[in-house]
């Protein structure tokens, strides 16, 4: 599905959530929608789903979106926070499957893969499930839907590690023709999920470009080392900051990472108890670690 927004604006009473947004999302693109809280991400996705009346025009495959029911059957959506519905899980699954023409077994299979046994929770009210269980249920419904557009708002926010891994595997298997919009604050997670990044700021598009370039600018590699002896001079000399539990850390650029990791292993040798290299958003780094980066 190709989505085109032309001068889309939305006001809520005294607040302007979107200000003349121009944006094109190509068919099959996997787009990360980023931005601070209140930047307009949720309003934008709701506008694309036809839930809001906006100024400007939204084109779906070249046709103006005037009737939400033209896009709804082709859409799968996972909200960041699942609704506090009193209805039982099996009622919700049954109704959605009825509307979508899906087989409940397909939803149950994906839910099981994500670690949620639908049979065990079938009679429980949705609002009585934990946040993670609700998220798994909504993900299972969305992933079971053969949608042309998937909108996922912080889909892994409440998932445990195993479910997150299973979700990422499922995500990779989404049909290549499907367009995906992923709202997330976790830049480290996006690298393998999206090929395009759109950043919103104060209701306008602040960045629109390929993911690789954006992420390499914004992501830092954090090297974390735990040594057996208290404070190895080599770590101090190379700008590592002391953390808790015997860990030392330093943020570096992706290029520095490739030289510093082998150097650390060579210099510290048997003193190294553990070593971790992870991606991190530069904005999330603590002042000490960011400073040395």
């Amino acid at each position, binding site marked *: 599905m190709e989505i085109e927004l032309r001068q889309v604006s939305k006001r809520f009473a005294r607040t302007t959530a979107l200000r003349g947004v121009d944006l094109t999302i190509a068919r099959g693109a996997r787009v990360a929608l980023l931005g601070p809280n209140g930047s307009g991400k949720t309003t934008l996705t709701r506008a694309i789903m036809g*839930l809001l009346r906006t100024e400007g025009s939204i084109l779906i495959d070249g046709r103006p979106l005037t009737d939400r029911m033209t896009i709804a059957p082709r*859409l799968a959506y996972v*909200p960041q926070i699942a609704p506090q519905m009193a209805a039982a899980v099996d009622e*919700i699954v049954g109704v959605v499957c009825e509307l979508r023409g899906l087989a409940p077994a397909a939803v149950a299979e994906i839910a099981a893969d994500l670690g949620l046994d639908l049979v065990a929770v079938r009679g429980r009210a949705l609002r009585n499930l934990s946040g993670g269980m609700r998220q798994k249920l909504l993900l299972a419904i969305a992933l079971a839907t053969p949608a042309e557009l998937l909108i996922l708002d912080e889909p892994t926010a409440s998932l445990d590690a195993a479910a997150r891994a299973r979700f990422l595997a499922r995500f990779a298997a989404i049909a290549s023709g499907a367009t995906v919009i992923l709202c997330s604050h976790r830049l480290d997670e996006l690298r393998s999920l999206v090929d395009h990044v759109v950043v919103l700021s104060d209701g306008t598009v602040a960045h629109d470009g390929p993911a690789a370039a954006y992420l390499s600018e914004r992501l830092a590699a954090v090297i974390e080392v735990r040594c057996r002896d208290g404070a190895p001079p080599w770590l101090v000399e190379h700008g590592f900051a002391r953390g808790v539990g015997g860990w030392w850390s330093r943020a570096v650029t992706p290029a520095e990472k490739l030289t510093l990791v082998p150097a650390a292993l060579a210099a510290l040798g048997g003193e190294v108890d553990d070593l971790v290299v992870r991606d991190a958003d530069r904005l999330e780094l603590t002042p000490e670690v960011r400073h040395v980066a």
Partner: protein
Amino acid sequence: MTAATAARPRFARQVLAAARLDAAEILRSRWLLFCAGAYALLAVVFVLVGLRESTVPGFTGIGRVLLSMCHALLLLLPLLALTALGPVIGRAREDGTLELLFSHPLSRAAWFVGVSLTRYLALVVPLVVLLVGLGLYGQLAHGQAVPWPFMVRALVVSAALLAAFAGVGLCISTLVRNPARVTTYIVLAWVVGVALIDFGLIGVLLRWRLDPQMVFTLAAINPVQDARMALLSGLEADLATLGPVGFYLTHRLGADLLYLLGVLWPALVGVGTWTAAFVAFRRSDLV
């Protein structure tokens, strides 16, 4: 899949899906407990009091229970309908239910119709069970002669009254987004409905020296007063029961016309306010 193959379910199927989900919501909600509790309390109180003694000669037992109960229902039914429908859209919008549901192929019209019907039935069905149950109890357990025609009349009028305030509740729900204000408007609508009946109107008439025609008009456009007159005029058309306005209108219009007015006007108010709410809902943002 393409736009052509992504099927849109039929409208009736969407309505059923929305109704099924809302029924599941209602069955687990505190509101249903409140509603059932209120009906049950009324039944118990009036059975205990009414079957024991009566001061009206020739009108005792279950008939008196039903009459007393109708008086109470006139106050209770508007409140139940308003609390059932008033918060429904605001709450669903607030907790994310609308956002999730409308990401699926479910039209606004289908959801609106499904939820309205479900909530309306949730109000009417327990009432039918209650009144019929009371009648059967009086007949079987106490050997009373049950006034079944009055029972049917009471049910029809009550259903119309419920429709009127269900529509008003939906209007409030659609037009008022702030949950605290929704509660205020619900209370306000209920107070206006139950205050602008005989004694309140006569008070207004005396206090501000209004034209009596104005008072009768105010009474006639209030669905509660219409329902009240329709219920009581067929049973005990005296001044003490009906009040001055009701007594005047009964003798002016006749019991049959009052009954028609008491059914048709609240039903019309219900349909009108429901339509207004539906139009507003179609034009508003869903989240």
